């Protein structure tokens, strides 16, 4: 009986391990490459890490490379972090408030407003990127953190998600709060937000990664090297044509760029599960 169990478990495990290997191998190769010198990489890559790990990372983090006009990766990581945080927090804040208004208040054209928000879902950023650029340029927000983040903050998806969740909050709870004397803002802060914490955690993870991985918009809106985000910086490092590419540094930077989103996922996951276990309907 036991032996048959083990045999039955073997195949799924093999498939899973195979999957993990396929997903993890490129990351492992990136790690290996980041521990070698440029010459080692070009001479044909070994499968085991080399001795230059610390040196490569130090160079990437603090010195910067010619391709990025001498801006260090540390600065780029900082830019990306600020941008992603502003976008994630801003999106959550705005969509929480708009969903709250649409669900809990009765005002003229309520459904029209909701559908207008909903319709913007159907327009990807790329479609409206030229007019948006013009608006931002005329407001003088080119090359600023505000120009980088504000146009990306409005979020139909998050509004929709919050709306769906808010609709599950029973009317009696709203009424009990009314009788207890909690005003709309108080009800939002004391009841709606604590009840939404699972959704908040999930959305924060998704939106942070969304912000972190922004490419097209930062590429358009930032000119000064000081505003370069890590994703843009990474592409600049890979030289085109004659430009020399320091593959060891590029690989180190790649891993560094992956680190913050991975950390956010790991950290928030604990919350997330806690929220899921504790939540009740």
């Amino acid at each position, binding site marked *: 009986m036991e032996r048959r169990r083990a045999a039955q478990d073997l195949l799924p495990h093999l498939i899973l391990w195979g999957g993990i290997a396929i997903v993890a191998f490129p990351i492992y190769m990136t790690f290996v490459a980041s521990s070698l010198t440029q010459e080692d990489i070009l001479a044909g890559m070994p499968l085991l890490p080399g001795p230059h790990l610390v040196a490569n990372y130090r160079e990437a983090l603090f010195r910067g490379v010619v391709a990025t006009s001498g801006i260090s990766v540390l600065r780029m990581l900082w830019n990306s972090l600020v941008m992603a945080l502003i976008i994630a927090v801003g999106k959550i804040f705005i969509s929480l408030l708009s969903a709250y208004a649409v669900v809990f208040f009765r005002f003229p054209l309520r459904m029209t407003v909701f559908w207008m928000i909903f319709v913007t879902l159907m327009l990807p950023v790329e479609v409206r990127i030229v007019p948006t650029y013009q608006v931002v340029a005329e407001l003088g927000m080119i090359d600023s953190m505000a120009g980088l983040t504000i146009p990306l903050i409005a979020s139909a998806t998050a509004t929709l998600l919050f709306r769906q969740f808010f609709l599950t909050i029973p009317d*009696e709870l709203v*009424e009990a709060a009314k*009788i207890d*004397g909690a005003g709309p803002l108080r009800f939002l802060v004391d*009841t709606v937000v604590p*009840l939404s914490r699972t959704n908040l955690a999930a959305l924060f993870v998704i939106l942070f990664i969304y912000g972190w991985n922004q490419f097209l918009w930062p590429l358009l809106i930032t000119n000064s090297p000081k505003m370069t985000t890590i994703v843009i910086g990474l592409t600049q490092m890979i030289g085109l044509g004659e430009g020399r590419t320091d593959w060891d540094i590029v690989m180190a930077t790649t891993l560094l760029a992956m680190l913050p989103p991975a950390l956010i996922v790991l950290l928030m996951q604990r919350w997330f599960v806690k929220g899921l276990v504790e939540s009740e309907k």
Partner: protein
Amino acid sequence: MGEVTLRAVRKSYGATEVVHGVSCDIADGELVVIVGPSGCGKSTLLRMVAGLEEITAGEILIGGKVVNAVEPKDRDIAMVFQNYALYPHMTVRDNMAYGLKIRRLARAEVEARVRRAAGILQIEALLDRKPRQLSGGQRQRVAMGRAIVRDPQVFLFDEPLSNLDAQLRVQMRVEIRRLQQSLGTTSIYVTHDQVEAMTLADRLIVMRGGVAEQIGPPLLLYERPATVFVAAFIGSPAMNLLPAVASEDAVVLAGGARLPLPAGLAADRPVTLGIRPEHLVAGDGPATIEVRVELAEMLGADTILHGRLGDGSLLQARLPGAERAQPGERMRLAVDPRQLHVFDRESGKRI
């Protein structure tokens, strides 16, 4: 100080009127139960008192003040909801203290009030739990605790026992009554369960289709129902209602049985005759009806007899448990003429 007055209160949603002018004076400390089938407007009426629904026309007074335009939180009321409406993320203590904290009571006072209410309801041991860790009955107590700590002028109960199982409902019913009497707080209680209504109420408001059919103490409604609807709604098993024609000193049933009446009536008037099942006894009397037994439910203490009259209409009788009857058997049932209820067939009003 805790009296509530309804003056021709109406409620419409757009063009549809759902409450058609209800008036009632509720004295301080009284427990009034609003009872009726679903959709009769009883919850709407309660919610108007709470301030959760706007009042289309008429006036509601709490403690002598018109509250039509007053916010729920300023009406000095507390409400217990059917699904308890506890804040799921707060502990029992925080649930009970929330309203007081918003009112900026001193922390010591809040704690003292929560302790006292928890003591009354015997939920001290649960104060640090979250609502999901409680059973239905315990949640119900917490919901009541939340109302008690506020020490309001009026308690409003919106079918508070509907989500409990039958046994717990009976137990909580008794407790609510005892609690209300010891606190002496004016209460309005909505239910669709007529047994709950009868046992709890100082006075009943029986509603149908947005109209208060009758307002009065439970026993008065049982003994002298004003309309056919109240007659059928109050009492279990329900009153037998039979089509009949009045002559000067008697009513003649459609099946031909003639029952004498204590007071005279205009002749040849079409009426509905009401006989409570528990007022029928086996045997002969001044007013006797013959039925063919269809079914006898032996409940031990009682036997509920389902019989058919000559014209095919049904008659239920609640007889002592010792009474035996076989299906198909013919049986004579007698009733005291003073316990007959006669209603006008057209209007359904008591004559």
